[in-house]
């Protein structure tokens, strides 16, 4: 009985340590990448292509299937950790873009005479849904890695597009939505002629 208890305790400790080690590795990768990014002055230019496709590639479970099946276990583990760190970074950028989109929109609304309450409510609900979903997605990626949550990531991209469309509908503003690769085109603001 005591031996079984000790074995159980040892097993639990091993699992907890292994889990903690994986999380620590992911955290280390995130910190390393953050430091590297801070020094990448050459990378300050505009992105090369649609980020939504990058999101699709990051969460692609077929990649994990190939690597797990054919690469050595340490390589597969490293791959999963790196992809987790990248997916979390991608999500952070997506959320940051949405926040700056809303912040710019709020600034534009303050100086606008044409304020639509229903439009603003719709926008607020889209933003709330987006924040909620990406928050859940962030937690899911942190816990299980990016390869089991591809559908949720795709849905997040859809919601971010809807959010951008809602902003355009309510009040067009020049905002680049880096997370989705979508840029809201600037439009002439119709203001009443000053007498």
């Amino acid at each position, binding site marked *: 009985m005591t031996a079984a208890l000790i074995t159980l305790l040892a097993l639990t400790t091993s699992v907890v340590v292994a889990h903690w080690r994986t999380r620590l590795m992911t955290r280390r990768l995130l910190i390393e990448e953050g430091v590297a990014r801070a020094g990448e002055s050459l990378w300050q*230019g505009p*992105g*090369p*292509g649609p980020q939504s496709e990058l999101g*699709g*590639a990051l969460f692609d479970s077929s*990649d994990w299937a190939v690597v797990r099946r054919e*690469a050595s276990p340490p390589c*597969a583990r490293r791959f999963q950790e790196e992809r987790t760190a990248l997916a979390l970074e991608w999500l952070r950028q997506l959320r940051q873009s949405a926040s700056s989109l809303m912040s710019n929109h709020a600034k534009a609304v303050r100086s606008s005479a044409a304020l639509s309450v229903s439009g603003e409510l719709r926008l607020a609900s889209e933003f709330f849904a987006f924040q909620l979903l990406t928050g859940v997605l962030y937690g899911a990626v942190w816990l299980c890695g990016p390869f089991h949550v591809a559908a949720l990531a795709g849905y997040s991209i859809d919601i971010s597009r809807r959010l951008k469309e809602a902003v355009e509908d309510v009040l067009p503003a020049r905002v680049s939505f880096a997370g989705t690769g979508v840029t809201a085109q600037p439009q002439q603001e119709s203001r009443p002629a000053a007498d």
Partner: protein
Amino acid sequence: MLGRLVHVEVEAAQENLRNLTLAKIPGDFGRLIYLASLRDYNAGEYHHAGLIQQFGAEVARDAILLSHREVFNRVVRCSIAELVRQIELYAASTHTLFADFAHTWEKLEPYRVIVPLGGDPLASRLFVCNVRAALAVLQGRQSRAPQDPQFALPRQ
């Protein structure tokens, strides 16, 4: 007007590069390596004698940079399975024993310097991660089938 003219010229130079040079290289991964090899390590500028002669230095430089980004964007978005196939194709074109190729690439990590400048940092990190994984897959296949001629390409 001048801007549009330059744009047309750059497009023509890109078309020229695509049809006369890149089309002869098998696979986007090989094309990516070729395009990166046209870049000066110190200045970061591209040099291609034929294009410079035909279109001028500035247009040639812009055309190569745009082509480099275009090919990189395709490679970074392809799946690991496709990337494995492309690296295999490239390794075969170098006429090096795959074991030597894999060892050198693992140690020197030359794929880090084939990323174009001015792109998305996240894309470049994804690229490095994917190439490393693709190499691990190829090495795994090699260790399972050491006698497979696919992995023991004869030196020429």
